[in-house]
């Protein structure tokens, strides 16, 4: 995705400006720091805990937080801190797969629809309309209910089907706005092919709005995954997911509040980080919105 080769001089100006503003934004700095820690947690959870999250002892069931188990123990008597740490992986993977997939679909379909108006544009727009008709969680429930196995991939696929439309429209709008500009005409006059014009000249300049949307959407998708797992149509045991943990905690809220608070806090902080980084990006890219 990194358009390193495609960054031309004019763009370096814009991104330089944006970078300067972002470095002064506390919500961006804190947000990216938290996301970095979470990413590390998802990649190598062993760095944060040596305890195996699946090493359980029913005798310790629902013991409250203590010095040896910071977050206490869950219903099965597993170390809750280890479970919460390992839970980052499913959230982050679902978020990244969905948004990465949506970006790819958005760039391909958005470029096609924006560059060649006519029947292609119409077909894509109508298909997007149908998916827009589907509410997010309800649509995902119907889709997920059809899978026998429900792992990270299935949940991601269901959410991807309901996420690609808005970034596609954003890319399409940018492509339409850029399509007839002078520098594109110049590239065409020099004999550049359509493919080269789209990938080298148009898409790099159409990326900014869709990046903002993508960052915020990672947070929204992570929240949706937790909600679906909580409802029982998302990830299933023995998968480790914050939504599943909260689902299990719901019967014990009154006596063992820690079962709800720890995964809940991690979930909220994760979603909040992605949303605030997205907000900060938008403010930096589009000063009018401030």
């Amino acid at each position, binding site marked *: 995705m990194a358009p390193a080769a495609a960054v031309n001089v004019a763009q370096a100006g814009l991104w330089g400006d944006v970078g300067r503003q972002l470095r002064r934004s506390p919500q961006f700095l804190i947000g990216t720091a938290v996301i970095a820690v979470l990413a590390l947690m998802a990649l190598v959870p062993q760095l944060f805990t040596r305890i195996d999250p699946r090493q359980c002892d029913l005798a310790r069931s629902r013991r409250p937080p203590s010095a040896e188990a910071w977050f206490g123990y869950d219903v099965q008597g597993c170390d809750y801190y280890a479970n919460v740490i390992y839970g980052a992986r499913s959230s982050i993977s679902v978020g990244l797969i969905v948004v990465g997939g949506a970006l790819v679909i958005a760039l391909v379909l958005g470029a096609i629809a924006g560059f060649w108006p006519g029947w292609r544009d119409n077909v894509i727009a*109508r*298909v997007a*309309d*149908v*998916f*827009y*008709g*589907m*509410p997010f*969680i*309800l*649509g995902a*429930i*119907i*889709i997920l*209910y*059809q899978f*026998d196995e429900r792992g990270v991939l299935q949940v991601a696929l269901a959410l991807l089907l309901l996420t690609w439309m808005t970034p596609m429209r954003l890319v399409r709008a940018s492509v339409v706005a850029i399509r007839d500009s002078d520098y594109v005409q110049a590239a065409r006059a020099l004999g550049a092919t359509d493919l080269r014009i789209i990938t080298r000249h148009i898409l790099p300049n159409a990326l900014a709005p869709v990046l903002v949307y993508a960052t915020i959407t990672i*947070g929204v998708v992570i*929240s949706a995954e*937790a*909600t679906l797992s*909580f*409802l*029982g*149509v998302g990830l299933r045991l023995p998968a480790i997911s914050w939504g599943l943990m*909260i689902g299990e*905690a*719901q019967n014990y*809220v*009154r006596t063992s*509040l820690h079962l*709800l*608070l720890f995964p*809940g806090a991690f*979930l*909220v902080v994760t*979603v*909040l980080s992605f*949303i*605030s980084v997205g*907000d900060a990006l938008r403010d930096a890219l589009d000063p009018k*919105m401030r």
Partner: protein
Amino acid sequence: MSRYIARRLLLAIPVLIGASFFIFFLVYALPGDPVRALAGDRPLAPGVIAELRERYNLDDPVFVQYLKYVGGLLQGDLGIDFSGRPVSETIAQRIPVTAQLALTALVIEAVIGLIAGIVAGIRRGSYLDNLVLVSTTFLVSIPVFVLGFTLQYFLGVQIPLFPISGTNEGLYSYLLPGFVLATASMAYVARLLRTSLAENLRNDYVRTARAKGLPERMVIGKHTLRNSLIAVVTFIGADFGTLMGGAIVTEGVFNLPGVGRAVFDAVRSQEGTVVVGITTFLIFVYIFFNLVADVLYAALDPRIRYE
């Protein structure tokens, strides 16, 4: 305006066909045994399987199956549960609770969202504006079920201000679930109104109103606010459909006996027909209110015209 509305209604037809085909395709036409999918993990008796195949026309060609499915939908046929009761009957019996919850949420969302939006919009960059910005970001980031359980614990168990489950206390028992259901939309209403107020305040007619000496209350209340409310009212109209769907989680957390709770329970007891039937219904409710909102938009804003 009638031209616009007619056109909007026509545009809704492919969406409705697309949505029904999408659901039908997923549930009945994908490779794999739909009867098994509907049954979840439960083993079924051969007689039940034969009856389900007959009931869902599984031995017909796919296209005929789809037409029969849509025909059934149009007559309110959303399938039957394992005890042989039509899903539509369950919906009819439980919908008042869900509608009441969605309405309560809508009122809370409108009142709090509008106040926060006005306060933030007329004084950009003030302390209150920043407070609204920060708190709306928070509200959007807290998943509904986390907020639900947390408030239930602190405002229901620790300080017993609100009932924690059921509808025994009438309207009062809807307040806390309604607030929880409303949070995300509330934040959206506040931000939407803030942005559109601030944009409209820059318009020439506002300067004219000020120049002719109108008090600030009139400038904002009568001239700016009315124009800024168009987008907000449209959003709130569409949101009723979203809230009905969001009720699955809220009714699950607060144990309210509405259609959402029926889905919540059906997922647990693996009653696929009920999950699919009610979810399908809620999806069409959502599409319907989106349509209502679009028509409302045209009615409120005279600039929205085709041709």
